[in-house]
């Protein structure tokens, strides 16, 4: 059922290789993760995200979805298997906005070019562009404490966009938002994906969110996490809010839901 795009049987030890330019943007090869306390988080996970793809993984809470992203980004080493990705150029959108409360919106967005040693004028140009992109104009001087959850998430998105990473990892970033804000951010993310052309890997347990934004949805089972189903999402970009009420959308959501129910057992 699952398309295993790349199998390298001989490599079981953990290693990361720079992705070659014309290959996949991100590739998991038989990745397993067992934590020191014996918890089996992931079991033999293989999949790839091609350039121009937006792949969403849905699964029950605690099935190892976040662990998957931490491994992809290099924050965590897998117990076995390997990940191929250009780790120097990953954009990571965290579950919380993780803004620095002592920095203004401008300062927060500037952080990443700052960490990479860009000069002030370069930083300002990069920041200006992404602040326009996420609709934060006029809020540059605000501190995070005066922003709503949705606005904080936009700052977090803008921060991740500054260096235009070719691969974006989203760790259930809109889970804490109310429904309407979540839908708006889904629409904006989908628009950013279409215009910026990054490859996206998105983690969530919301089926409508997954189907609305993705080109492909993968379903992960309960711990230890294994990929159990895969669905292509055929809808054209840009996707309009009304798509959510399309019969085809409902049908696909139903299929994903059924697979996900199976994944709980």
């Amino acid at each position, binding site marked *: 059922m699952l398309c295993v795009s790349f199998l390298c049987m001989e490599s079981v030890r953990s290693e990361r290789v720079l992705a070659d330019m014309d290959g996949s943007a991100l590739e998991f090869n038989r990745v397993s993760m067992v934590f020191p306390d014996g918890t089996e988080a992931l079991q033999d996970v293989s999949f790839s995200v091609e350039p121009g793809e937006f792949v969403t993984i849905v699964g029950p809470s605690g099935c190892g979805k976040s662990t998957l992203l931490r491994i992809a980004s290099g924050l965590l080493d897998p117990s076995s298997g390997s990940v191929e990705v250009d780790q120097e150029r990953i954009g*990571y959108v965290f579950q919380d906005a993780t803004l*620095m409360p*002592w920095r203004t919106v401008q300062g927060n967005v500037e952080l990443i070019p700052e960490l990479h040693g860009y000069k002030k004028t370069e930083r300002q140009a990069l920041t200006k562009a992404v602040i326009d992109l996420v609709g934060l104009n006029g809020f540059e001087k*605000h501190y995070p*404490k*005066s922003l709503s959850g949705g606005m904080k998430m936009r700052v977090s998105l803008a921060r991740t966009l500054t260096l235009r990473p070719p691969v974006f990892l989203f760790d259930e970033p809109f889970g804490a938002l109310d429904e309407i*804000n979540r839908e708006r951010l889904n629409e*904006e993310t989908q*628009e950013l994906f279409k*215009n910026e052309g990054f490859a996206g890997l998105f983690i969530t347990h919301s089926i409508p969110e997954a189907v609305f934004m993705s080109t492909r949805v993968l379903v992960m089972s309960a711990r230890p996490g294994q990929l159990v189903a895969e669905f292509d999402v055929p809808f054209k970009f840009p996707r309009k809010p009304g798509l959510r009420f399309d019969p085809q959308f409902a049908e696909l959501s139903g299929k994903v839901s059924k697979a996900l129910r199976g994944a709980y057992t």
Partner: protein
Amino acid sequence: MSEIPVPDHAMEEAVADVAEGASVATPAARRRITLVDVAGPTLIFAVSLGCWYWLSYFGMSENRRFLVPPLHEVVQEGFLDWTNFSIMLNALWLTTQVAFWGLGIAIVLGMTLAILMSQARWVERSAWPYAVALQSFPILALVPLIGIVFDYNFNARVLVCIIIAIFPIINNTLFGIQSVESGHHDLLTLHNASRWTRLWKLQLPAASPAIFAGFRISAGLSVVGAIVGDFFFRKGDKGIGILIDQYASRTTTLPRLYAATILAGALGYVVFSGFGFLTKAVTGKWHESSDIPG
């Protein structure tokens, strides 16, 4: 890069947010001073003053009334008599210097120690028991020893201040640095931030509200330390503590004792609230709970 029209609902939402949160959001929006803010403290002051006068004229038995001279006598003899007042001011200035040197050194030493402790577990494990021991040591028991070793001079008093003021700085700096959110650490790890960058751009700013809370506590303690130091040191220039000690030994100088005590209290208050203002100036714009009354 292609241009995307700004999603206008984002803008609407944001504007609504700001309007709603304006009272906390904009730095310009200060809390207005209400009638209660003025009348309340004034009332308490008046009642205290009444109690004082009542004690001076009626409350104490007649042969002990001199022990509580009425406020106007204290003001006249202590503050309006320039000879007395200038002696007190000189002493107060000396005590202030001791307190500031003590506090300054405690801040530098305490923060350095806490930063070192935060960077290496073994430093923390090795040094922490001694920091706690220093904190729990009865300072009065230590003062005579310091006095003898340091010949009762200025440095000895500063040392007393440092010992008394350093613990809240170490404790709060370390606590602040260790309470940094793990998500922030991950963010810096993803971008290969060096230890120095992490300290400078993340740990210290994140810890600053806790650090400043430590400063405020230590500022008050350093004034206590300077005055305690004065009691024991009889060499060198007089601090306000020595004056208090001397004024207390004769009945004729009792009004001056009151005046000197008020000055010492005022010093403590000014130093404490000075750090309150400093805290506001540094973290007030962004930190949630920095509404400390000056």
